[in-house]
């Protein structure tokens, strides 16, 4: 006797087991509905019993607490706000809408919502899309190492003053139709272990971790943003104390120094002369993002612009738009080492 391929053999066994199998219930719908009603009655009854027990238990516990006022145990993170969003959010098939962003939910993933950023660190399952509503006071992504625990996760964070928390993460540009454009270097799916993308005009920040490159690329291609009409003019701090830049696009030879610091005074003078615009006409494919900081009081501006002269428009992180003349654009390019 020779051993046949396990797969075929097991399949043959399973098929043989099915030979005599046929449904016996002639009207399964009626049976299922009847069983559903019975289950519901049991749940209601169980709920009522539980409520009685809880009330009785609270009474007894309250009496005990009155006698014992010691410290209560520390709560590390309250995940009670985490909710599976499928029943409550605006669903369109396998996509989820969140603060102007429409995201695909990859096959086999679950969606959870929380107001606690630490939720994704504690007991988080792989393949979870987190949606976080975060108050402005809560700073960004502390206390949880990267990459996330256990496998790929993706999280979307929204908060006021999103641009203030960018801190070197990757802003997403808009194409002329108002949809996000991912710069190959600036938003690197080539580094799937960690990709952080900022949609500052929506106040949304998207982070992925541990996602395979193909899955990440497909996911990003399917992300849609609500079309935001550009606001004429750039949002700049009243005073620019610091200007740091990050270059993107082009080959490594063209961008020998991708990150650095510019002369804030020159940058400020150049940008004040920008002409307000309202129509997106082009996307910076090889260019830089400029982070402009005012130290006191805190204020930040974020700009994206092309360093090759192919696109004369500058966008800012809050949907502002302006056009530069060739001389001003050349000055900005020099300031970022291009």
């Amino acid at each position, binding site marked *: 006797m020779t*051993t046949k391929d*396990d797969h075929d*053999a097991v399949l043959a*066994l*399973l098929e043989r087991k*099915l030979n005599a199998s046929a*449904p*016996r219930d002639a009207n399964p719908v009626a049976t299922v509905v009847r069983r*559903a009603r019975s289950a519901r009655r049991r749940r209601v009854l169980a709920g009522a019993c539980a409520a009685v027990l809880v009330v009785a238990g609270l009474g007894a516990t309250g009496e005990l607490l009155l006698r014992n006022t010691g410290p209560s145990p520390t709560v590390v993170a309250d995940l009670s706000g985490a909710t599976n969003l499928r029943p409550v959010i605006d669903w369109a098939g396998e996509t989820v809408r969140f603060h102007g962003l429409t995201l695909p939910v990859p096959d086999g993933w679950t969606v959870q919502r929380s107001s606690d950023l630490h939720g994704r660190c504690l007991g988080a399952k792989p393949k979870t899309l987190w949606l976080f509503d975060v108050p402005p006071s809560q700073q960004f992504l502390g206390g949880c190492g990267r990459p996330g625990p256990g496998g790929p996760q993706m999280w979307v964070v929204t908060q006021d003053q999103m641009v203030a928390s960018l801190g070197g993460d990757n802003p997403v540009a808009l194409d002329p139709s108002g949809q996000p454009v991912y710069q190959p270097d600036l938003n690197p799916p080539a580094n799937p272990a960690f990709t952080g993308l900022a949609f500052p005009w929506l106040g949304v920040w998207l982070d992925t971790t541990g996602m395979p490159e193909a899955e990440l690329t497909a996911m990003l291609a399917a992300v849609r943003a609500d079309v935001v009409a550009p606001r004429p003019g750039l949002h700049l701090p009243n005073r620019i104390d610091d200007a740091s830049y990050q270059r993107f696009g082009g080959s490594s030879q063209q961008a020998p120094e991708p990150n650095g610091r510019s002369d804030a005074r020159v940058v400020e003078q150049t940008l004040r002369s920008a002409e307000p615009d309202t129509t997106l006409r082009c996307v910076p494919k090889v260019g830089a993002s400029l982070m402009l900081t005012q130290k006191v009081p805190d204020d930040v501006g974020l700009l994206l612009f092309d360093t090759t002269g192919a696109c004369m428009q500058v966008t800012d992180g809050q949907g502002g738009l302006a056009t530069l003349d060739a001389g001003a654009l050349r000055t900005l390019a020099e300031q970022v080492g291009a």
Partner: protein
Amino acid sequence: MREPEGFRDFVAARYPALVRFGTLLADDAGHGEDLAQVALVKTLRAWRRLHPDGDAEAYTRRVMAREAWRAGRRRWRGEVPTAELPEVTADDPYRHVVHQDTVSRLLDVLPAQQRVVLTLRYWAGLSEAEIADQLGCSVGTVKSRASRALATLRAAGALTETFLTNGAHR
């Protein structure tokens, strides 16, 4: 609980296939049909979000797999029928038929979790990672259950060509 729109059509179309799937997951056809109905009760409750845009069948199958998997965790699983087999002589003309029946019954008396993993792996064609995701367990657990199940079947001669050939001639 009222019967929602589309549910009757779904059950009419997919019930036989779900019962077959349940039969493989459970230890016999009766329990398989019961498993299908238990899962359909949950599908009925979730119908509003499963119809028309969701995948009601995938949801139902997932519930079935999980229910069968959980049944394997319970210490008491009710009576497990293990028929005592008659002794057979070497020249019994029905020997290989009895042998085949014996081996087929091995599928039924495999521990529930091993049977669930075999079904999902070989019948549903899921990868080990997908099975782990469906069942909410680790990939290692899936591998160990599959490995033990195959070892049992192999030891009983159920994965041999002779057995399969005899079965085909039956």
